[in-house]
């Protein structure tokens, strides 16, 4: 079976890879590129653990073909921090205990960052509906929502 040659940009770096048509972007990230921060909770777009940005749109990497990434700009959880400094969301999640097991955390962080890029002062309701596609079974969402709201407020006051 011929593989497709793909050139893409991930977290600011150029990548090339070969993929089978049926491989999803999530398969490629995890299996071919060893970027294991994006998690597979369902592979059907229902849990959000594989949330990534593709050309500035929040998507589930499990619902994108690897081949579709050609010429695209992909951002994953591995690209949230820069050098040794964490994204304020990452730091706030640690400070407020907004994670327990941590499996949903990469996807939640990518999704929350996307929200704050689009909406500087989201309401609690807006945060909750924006994150409705990111399932978390441990936290009951309370501390996640608080962390996102606090980071938004601190960014506004900065």
């Amino acid at each position: 079976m011929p593989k497709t040659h793909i050139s893409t940009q991930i977290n600011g770096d150029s990548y090339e890879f070969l993929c089978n048509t049926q491989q999803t972007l999530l398969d490629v990230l995890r299996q071919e590129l060893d970027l294991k921060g994006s998690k597979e909770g369902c592979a059907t777009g229902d849990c959000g653990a594989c949330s990534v940005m593709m050309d500035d749109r929040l998507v589930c990497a499990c619902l994108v073909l690897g081949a579709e990434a050609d010429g695209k700009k992909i951002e994953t959880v591995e690209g949230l921090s820069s050098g040794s400094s964490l994204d304020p969301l990452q730091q706030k999640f640690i400070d407020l205990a907004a994670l327990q097991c941590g499996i949903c955390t990469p996807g939640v962080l990518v999704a929350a960052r996307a929200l704050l890029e689009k909406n500087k002062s989201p309401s609690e309701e807006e945060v909750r509906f924006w994150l409705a596609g990111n399932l978390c079974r441990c936290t009951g969402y309370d501390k996640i929502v608080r962390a996102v709201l606090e980071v938004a407020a601190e960014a506004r006051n900065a």
Partner: protein
Amino acid sequence: MNDMTQTNLERALKIVGSRPARPDGVDKVTGRALFGADKSLPNMLVGRVLRSPYAHAKIISIDTSKAEKLEGVKAIITSADFEDFPSEFVPNGEMVVNMKDITRNVMAREKVLYVGHTLAAVAATDEDVAEKALALIDVKYDVLPHVLEVEDAEKSDAPLLHDDMITIGVEPMPTSASNVAKRVEFGLGDVEKGFSEADLIVEREFTTQQVHQGYIEPHACLASVSEDGQAELWCTTQGPFVVRNFCSKLLGFNAAQIRVTASEIGGGFGGKTVVYLEPLALALSRKSCRPVKMEMNRAEVFTSSGPTSGAKIWVKIGVKNNGKITAGDCVLKYQAGAFQGAPVGPGAMCAFAPYDLKNVRAVGFDIVVNRPKVAAYRAPGGPISEYGVESVIDEIAMKIGMDPIDLRLKNAAKEGTVAPYGPKLGPIGMIETLEAAKSHPHYSAPLGANQARGVASGFWFNIGGETSSSITINEDGTVGLTLGTPDIGGSRASMAMMASEELGVPMELIKPIIGDTNSLGFNFLTGGSRATFSTGTTVVESTREAIEELKKRAALLWEVSLDQVEWVDGHARLISGNEPKTMSLAQIAKQAGKTGGPIMANCSMNVTGAGPSLGTHIVDVEVDEETGQVSIVRYTAIQDAGKAIHPAYVEGQMQGGAVQGIGWALNEEYIYNDKGELENTGFLDYRIPVCSDVPMIDTVIVEVPNPNHPYGVRGVGETPIIPPLAAISNAVSRATNKRFDELPLSPPKVLAKLMHG
């Protein structure tokens, strides 16, 4: 231990009770943390599982010859690769397991007993080849009638899952087989006499549906068995030692041959306490002499792991007009799934346990049906039985015109109460949580249109068990902790905090890790709300032993007797003499080589004395009477933690448990078709709460210390899933003036009740 507890409680705590960053926080927010599916090895194969398409069938034959010939297939296993066992029950947390059943659940032997039951597994060079090989395995079945519900399974003409199953606990012993594995009974006093004294008796039947833990990380593992039979297993589990023991028994390894390393675990809630893929991956690796990685997909998690029971229950409570309960009685019939072991025992034990009752009885039946074998799920059995009891209590409160918290206060269990399951209770926080609920602003806040408020309480025992951990003092004064209970929700933080508190060194200098099965003595699993209690106890004990050793070393260096040295704030201090003389932990550690070598300590014990945790929840719901939709408007969870080591993670347990309970109450359920196939095998139709379904979950931590833990810890993980079921049902009942007795309260069911009563 009581004396030490006194010392601790009198001392001002510096670290315990604060909210430091968790040691694994950065790894978890950057995607660096490695979970079950995140590890690979060179030359690795992919393992896939052939699963039963039938709910109940005799296996006539399994022919793997065609699949074996497929290029890229390296190993195929069936039940022939597993040991068989006689029937023998062994405890596993709050659950009991039987090796005869476990080997049959891991790999079907004579029969398949549910859709999704494992029949064979393949290891191949890639997933495609493995899938093709599965399709080439030829299985001949004799399809049998199946049974899914307890009320059908207990009928005398029901299809029999196991033709040698004779009900245990019935006198005289039945002479013929049935699907009822056992009957249990707990109680006190004379129930009939109690009812005869009642002014009001309310009895009601309830139905709950099978629900799944719904951890976001599917089961996954990576096994590597070398040519000389040495095995390495990486897996997502709540108990690597338990996995080692199950796998070594199932496959005929000895314990030392298998080293199990627990990955980071993406949620478990009891569901990752038994083995599914792990023995298959080991067997495939042993056969192929190559590493084998296996992952369940989401559908497999739903069909083939271990959800908890659906149930039919009956509850009867008698009460005086003043609210004093005179008698309580209940019958619980729990689905076990394909093999016996429903959590009906603990369900019966805790059904009435929040209350001080003189006449009480709880009878439970463990009934096999053609569904996956149930596993533990957060307070296994408790949410179901207590849902029934707490619903009837609420109905009584309405009927006698009493506030539901006052009614509970009137009957609350307290220190000295004889629990319905036998023992006399130590200090417990039922009254304290009820009083905190009553005085919480939520309880007196105004309600909007179509809204109502419900309350319910919950009781859970918590457990201790075999535990082993160690502490090392490094030569630069930093500290290593090796723990044997996987960290699901921040336990590395709480262990490091307790060690930090004892040692008097900053938490940042303490590095806690989860050790593999060769690094410590046996550890029972993370479950039963035991990690902070049990592992915490061993951490405190071993830290105190290390402190004794540090004092000894200081005494040597000062050339004084040990009794001249005390330990204060991370320093040895000379007690006698005019000028204060101190030596820091780092200074002592630096000279360890000169004073007797490395400093380390460990503690291995069977921890006892777990303290029950009581909780009371308040919920406001709004019911759309045209559509039957129920929304959660406001929620407050109140719980006795004994002592909250890291309050943020205690709150997290309360919030997470409450929302799992909300899911159970509102929308979660296994839906089967008439062929016995599960219809909702994904998160689209198995509807766990999403972020927009719930409000903030307000919490109040009550602290009635457990005298059997150095800091008073009770364990908090399980109790919070218990109250939501009844609290929500009670609120919906009050909002609509109809008494609801069936879960989930999904819109179609609520509207049907509103339309037809």
